[in-house]
């Protein structure tokens, strides 16, 4: 691969904690992601995976180092980096349709691209719910709407911050396939934060394992299995076991949350 699409160069981010000390959410983290790649960030709470994602989104600034998109330093949020939140964050006073169109309106291109809204409603499988409000639809539907809302801006990269974390496992499996489908069809680059090892292996080209205090990348694993992948494959299981072991080795207590 030539130049990476996204690059983090030695980024560090310290948050002040209650005692006035600092929590090193990220310490000197470097990562390169190529165009069209699907990368998962995995690790226990506090390992800085969300922080890294927010730095790339421009929602936060690193204190040291820099994040780059296409070789240009990321300063502040932009519509070329879509963000999907765990808590969905649809706007409750907008209908599903208006939520999906929000990005177009924000960029002032709504008039020209009005027809796209319909296409993205269809993409998210939300036909018939265009006029519903977020509180009327299920969690899975809301997350699909928020995916459509992020994708309608044609972002160069889609940042997914535990988008499936709050969903039941049936909805979760379905949405994993939807995300994969979107990734394949639209050739989008995706960075996916998760607690779930299966999910990370099922979806990604590469799995980035992170460890907490200070937040660092401990290992990057090339998954390399053919798609479509099978969760019960011998290779899948083996990789799963080895990643779980690696995550356990980092000194978390027993019964860590990512078994959920």
């Amino acid at each position, binding site marked *: 691969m030539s130049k990476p699409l996204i690059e983090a160069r030695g980024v560090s981010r310290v948050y002040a904690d209650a005692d006035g000390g600092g929590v090193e959410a990220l310490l000197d983290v470097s990562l390169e992601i190529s165009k069209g790649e699907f990368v998962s960030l995995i690790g226990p709470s506090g390992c800085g995976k969300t922080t890294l994602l927010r730095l790339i989104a421009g929602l936060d600034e690193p204190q040291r180092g820099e994040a780059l998109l296409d070789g240009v330093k990321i300063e502040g949020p932009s519509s070329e980096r*879509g963000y999907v939140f765990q808590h969905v964050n649809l706007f409750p*006073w907008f209908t599903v349709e208006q939520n999906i169109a929000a990005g177009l309106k924000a960029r002032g291109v709504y008039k020209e691209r009005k027809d796209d809204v319909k296409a993205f409603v269809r993409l998210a499988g939300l036909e018939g719910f265009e006029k519903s409000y977020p509180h009327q639809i299920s969690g899975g539907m809301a997350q699909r709407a928020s995916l459509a809302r992020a994708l309608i801006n044609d972002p160069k990269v889609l940042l997914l911050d535990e988008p499936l974390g709050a969903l039941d496992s049936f909805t979760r499996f379905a949405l994993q396939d939807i995300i994969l489908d979107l990734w394949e069809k639209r050739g989008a680059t995706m960075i996916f934060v998760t607690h779930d090892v299966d999910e990370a292996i099922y979806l990604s080209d590469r799995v980035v394992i992170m460890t907490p205090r200070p937040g660092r990348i401990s290992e990057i694993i090339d998954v390399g299995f053919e798609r479509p992948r099978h969760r019960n494959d011998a290779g899948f299981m083996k990789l799963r076991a080895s990643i779980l072991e690696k995550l356990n080795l980092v000194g978390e207590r027993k019964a860590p949350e990512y078994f959920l």
Partner: protein
Amino acid sequence: MSLLNTPFWEVFLASFDPAAWKSLVPAIWETLYMVGITCVITLVGGVILGLILTVTNTFGLLPIVWLNRSLSAVVNCLRSLPQMIMIILMIPVARMILGKAYGVNACIIALAASCIPMFARLVESSLLEIEKGKVDAAKAMGSSSFQIIFRIMIPETLPSLIRGFTVAIIAVISMTALAGNFGAGGIGDIAVRFGFQRFQHEVLFAAVYVLVALVQLVQFAGDAASKILLKKRHLI
């Protein structure tokens, strides 16, 4: 007719007599005028001030700490004055601006000076309740700060802003009655002149009915408006 020499029941009945309402009716219009104008000024001033207070704070959209601190201090100063003192304090200001220190318009200055800071704090506390994630979502889709304020923050908090404004209107009504004492006219003036100075308690009663009805009406309208919005969003 005074409660001192007339049974309560008779005073009560007399309070529904047109005679009791003769001087009250024009005063109602004065009060409505004062309340109306003050509410418009309070709404505009309070929303602007509340927005500035919110977005300029350390964790706000456009942090300008010195501006936030100084505005906040000014608001606190204005809010620390009891309404009556504010009215007295604004007398020379009204004379400076309007050329006379009494009357309906002079009173509006005092009302606004007291109610804008109060409403601004209500606006601020509503806006601070917004989930950070919603603002982040808007930022991530490329919204400007201006768009976030007018397309996200205000619509999101509209039901709570309406409730806050209802509280503010009622405060304006009560302060208007107080201002009647200081040459502002209106219902408060009637209540003091007839009810207190002349012992015409039937007029006082009538004035009380009007004030109660006004406040009920405003509260009802405010509750209804905020409920309609919440229902539309299926939040209740």
